[in-house]
């Protein structure tokens, strides 16, 4: 064995040996089976911190703001939640966020799936490279910059309108409205969805599709009965990511919405910063968290427990 040759062991072996000795010294012997779990600690710590933050928010949300001192009152009350339900604006804004999340998720998945499919199936290395670059390039450009990019393209004197007016038509109202926000969000979410769908599509052997075809299915039938069902885990995963990211988005409605297409995140921001009401802001955050979590749970329930690869029996 390599150990007999002194100093002949690769550096990585020696490093691991050292770590093992350290663990052996610091850890009761009986617990050595748990060593692997040590690597979970940072993740657990992060989640724990998040839970603490959420705990604080729940606490804040239960106190009303005192306008005389701009501090939360000592007494517990449900005033902030009452405000949420009594002011139609919050329900409306939440509904608008949910609707946008649903629309954006749908459009993004419909656009992302063929993209991922083509990227996996293309036999041309050049095409795949182009698709990959086109996919990753936007990742290097932040959401805010991209939103401003849309202003340049869609503005009253923007690229598109200069073409429209160039052929003698009146300029179009393309930004500062709900569709503009949806458009910006779809563009922002597309790479996420493609990245999440690609492994799912890649896992479907090309033979499976040929088999379906030879068994009598047109390509539409193959897509409906074989490709989509087999890619379901990826589709659900991508859907959940896009849905939650959209539901909680701030920048697109802020920049492309012209101030009148706010999402719930903008309302939370306004509560925290514009009117300095940390209690109301926390209450809105809690409501958003609850609604978002409930919907994700619902999606997973409808899609089935095995969707994300859990509880799937493997031979």
């Amino acid at each position, binding site marked *: 064995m390599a150990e007999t040759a002194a100093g002949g062991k690769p550096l990585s072996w020696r490093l691991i040996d050292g770590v093992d000795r350290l663990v052996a010294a610091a850890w009761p012997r009986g617990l050595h089976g748990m060593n692997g779990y040590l690597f979970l600690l940072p993740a657990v710590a992060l989640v724990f911190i998040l839970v603490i933050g959420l705990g604080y928010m729940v606490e804040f949300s239960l106190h009303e703001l005192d*306008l*005389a001192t701009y501090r939360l009152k000592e007494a517990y009350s449900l005033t902030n939640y009452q405000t949420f339900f009594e002011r139609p*604006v919050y329900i409306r804004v939440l509904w608008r966020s949910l609707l946008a999340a649903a629309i954006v998720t749908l459009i993004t998945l419909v656009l992302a799936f063929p993209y991922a499919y083509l990227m996996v199936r293309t036999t041309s290395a050049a095409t795949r490279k182009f698709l990959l670059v086109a996919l990753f390039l936007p990742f290097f450009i932040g959401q805010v910059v991209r939103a401003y990019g849309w202003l340049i393209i869609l503005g009253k004197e923007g690229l598109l309108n200069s073409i429209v007016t160039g052929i003698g038509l009146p300029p179009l109202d393309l930004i500062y409205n709900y569709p503009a926000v949806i458009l910006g969000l779809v563009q922002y979410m597309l790479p996420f969805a493609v990245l999440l769908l690609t492994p799912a599509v890649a896992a479907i052997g090309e033979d499976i599709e040929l088999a379906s075809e030879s068994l009598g299915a047109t390509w539409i039938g193959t897509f409906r009965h074989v490709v989509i069902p087999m890619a379901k885990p990826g589709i659900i995963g991508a859907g959940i990511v896009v849905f939650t990211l959209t539901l909680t988005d701030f920048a697109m409605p802020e920049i492309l919405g012209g101030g009148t297409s706010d999402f719930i995140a903008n309302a939370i921001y*306004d509560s925290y910063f514009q009117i300095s*009401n940390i209690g109301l802001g926390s209450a809105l955050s809690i409501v958003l968290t609850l609604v978002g979590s409930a919907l994700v749970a619902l999606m997973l329930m409808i899609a089935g427990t095995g969707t994300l690869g859990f509880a799937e029996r493997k031979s």
Partner: protein
Amino acid sequence: MSDNRDPFRLNRRRFLKGSALATGALALPQFAFADGHTKKPSELIVRAWGGAWGESLQAGVADPFTEATGIPVRLDFTEDNEIKPKIWAAVDQGRVPPIHVNWDTTTNATISALRGVTVDLGDLKGLDGLLSIAKPTGIDGWPLVNTYSYVYVCAYRPEAFPDGPPESWRVMLDPKFKGRVALYDDGIGFNPIAVIAGGGSMSDIPDNMEPGYQFYRDLKENEPLLGEDADFTTWFQNGEIDIACTISVNARAAKQKGINVEWTVPKEGCKVDTDGLWIPKGLPANEEYWSKRFIEFAITREAQEKWCSLLGLPPVYPGLEPPADLAGDPAYPTAPADFEKLVSVPSPVLVENQPIWFSKFSEIMQG
């Protein structure tokens, strides 16, 4: 950069903070020449608004102050709404606040004063000689110093108004301007005006805001754009809007950039308001000392003249001439007659009601 750099600054800071607490509020800086209470900090951080605003503060106050004292001044462009909770949290938790001087709207500054996070500025030199609007109202002492007043004017694109400037704010409701009207995203500067334009009067404020809300509802039909200072300039520049309620400084900055923008005070009037400077609690004694010197400098004749003429706003230092382009401009009130055309809401009313107005505004506009 600074000749005051001290490798032990952190330790000293902590020590000074302890000693400042020990000596308490009575430890007047003037009597502490000998020790660290007047030691120059390596820099002063002043929160400011960007664009034309920041440039004017830099040239009118910060640069001359650095020249006079050797202390570099750094402008921090964190949003006013975002710095507020940071300062509040720092004071609550006994940490050193992130900035030395906050340049703030009088309403927000007063809210911070109510929260108890401001240092009293009553001992500043030169307060006595200022116009009366320099002193905050509805609150004891000098938790802040107002430094100039400004007007939320009716800015417009002359090309869209070939028959001359708009005479009434109600022109915003004209379907002709659908999607081409802009307000601040919280409605600030327009709340009292909306009441009057909606058929109410000053006496309705703050108890009967309904005419104003009705005006908002009508305006909502016209799909207004909502934004912040920088947005207005961009929108005028890109031809996105024809008419806006914005601070005259933004309109003037756009005009100075060569954008075709004019402004006027319609018959319902315009809201006049003030901005001020304040210092958060919890600074080391020497930093607080020099922060006070900074504000003291900002209300000298020299600084007021330069700063306010760059902004194009009437200073709190009396007797200064307006910039040539603003002489006789209704957005630059000097004579009592000018002020009669403007609408001023007392600070305490604003502090108490502005959050409600903001909420109502967003409720209507987000519909």
